[in-house]
């Protein structure tokens, strides 16, 4: 049906019935796609790993989400001792809460009235995956990676966040072994809420620095 109307329907978009679709991936494999398949098949053939192990690892990666990070942030808002440990060594603090963050070295940076922190990886896509899950697509784009260190305030405005002139913006470029998470400031009006209630206010973007936590209703 779409091909009956080449002027109206291209290979991506909406079907006439309003169903979004995308082009079938009929294009030839790229060099690196072939390489990945070849290496994977060799590893399976030689008994190094199994398809089930690979699927389980993908499952594990997909199961991580910003909910983990939000629990860490909410705990820091409600437990000053934990907050101090988080800012001293975020990796150990996350492990203390039972999050398996592997050998990851994690640094938490705190937003205050004076300072707003923003995380980027200009070289690739380093991201605290164990606490936030997979990075959003925009985090990996050249536009975000190059602009975040050059005009962070303009980038933040595009995310709907206009910072006062007097607030210092600190951009953190994950260039090597550290991963970063922003500890956002607790939103006004949320005092006295439980950690579970507070966690629901913590958005993914507020832990990257491109947003602020939600305000309580």
């Amino acid at each position: 049906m779409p091909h009956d109307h080449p002027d109206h329907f291209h290979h991506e978009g909406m079907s006439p019935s309003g169903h979004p679709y995308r082009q079938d991936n009929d294009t030839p494999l790229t060099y690196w796609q072939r390489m990945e398949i070849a290496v994977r098949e060799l590893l399976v053939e030689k008994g190094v790993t199994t398809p089930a192990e690979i699927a389980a690892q993908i499952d594990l990666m997909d199961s991580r989400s910003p909910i983990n990070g939000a629990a860490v942030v909410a705990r820091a808002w409600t437990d000053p001792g934990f907050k101090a440990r988080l800012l001293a060594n975020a990796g150990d603090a996350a492990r203390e809460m039972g999050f398996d963050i592997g050998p990851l070295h994690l640094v938490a940076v705190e937003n205050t009235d004076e300072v707003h922190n923003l995380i980027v990886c200009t070289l690739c896509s380093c991201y605290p995956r164990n606490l936030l899950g997979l990075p959003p697509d925009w985090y990996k784009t050249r536009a975000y990676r190059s602009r975040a260190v050059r005009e962070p305030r303009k980038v933040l405005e595009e995310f709907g966040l206009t910072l006062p002139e007097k607030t210092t913006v600190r951009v953190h470029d994950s260039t090597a072994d550290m991963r970063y998470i922003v500890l956002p400031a607790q939103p006004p009006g949320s005092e006295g809420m439980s950690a579970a209630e507070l966690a629901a206010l913590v958005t993914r973007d507020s832990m990257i620095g491109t947003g602020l936590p939600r305000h309580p209703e």
Partner: protein
Amino acid sequence: MAERVRVKSMMPPGHVRAPAYLRGKTGVIERALGEFGNPEQLAYGLKAEKKPLYRVRFTMAELWGAEAENPEDTVDAEAYAHWLEEAPDAP
């Protein structure tokens, strides 16, 4: 390591973790992070020496000069000791 450091402006080939926009720029050590395997060797499956890693803070004024969006804002980045040299005190 000195408090004020400059990222060396060398351009070696291969996998390096010092972004080009920081090379030749001066900042201050924000904290020492300990020693980590040198990614320039790790990337090629070589036995990696442990190298001291630092977080260095640069002002936007230092990075982008007159075009800085806000001169007082900062970029913190990790840099290995072998990419850093002592910088003279600020004028």
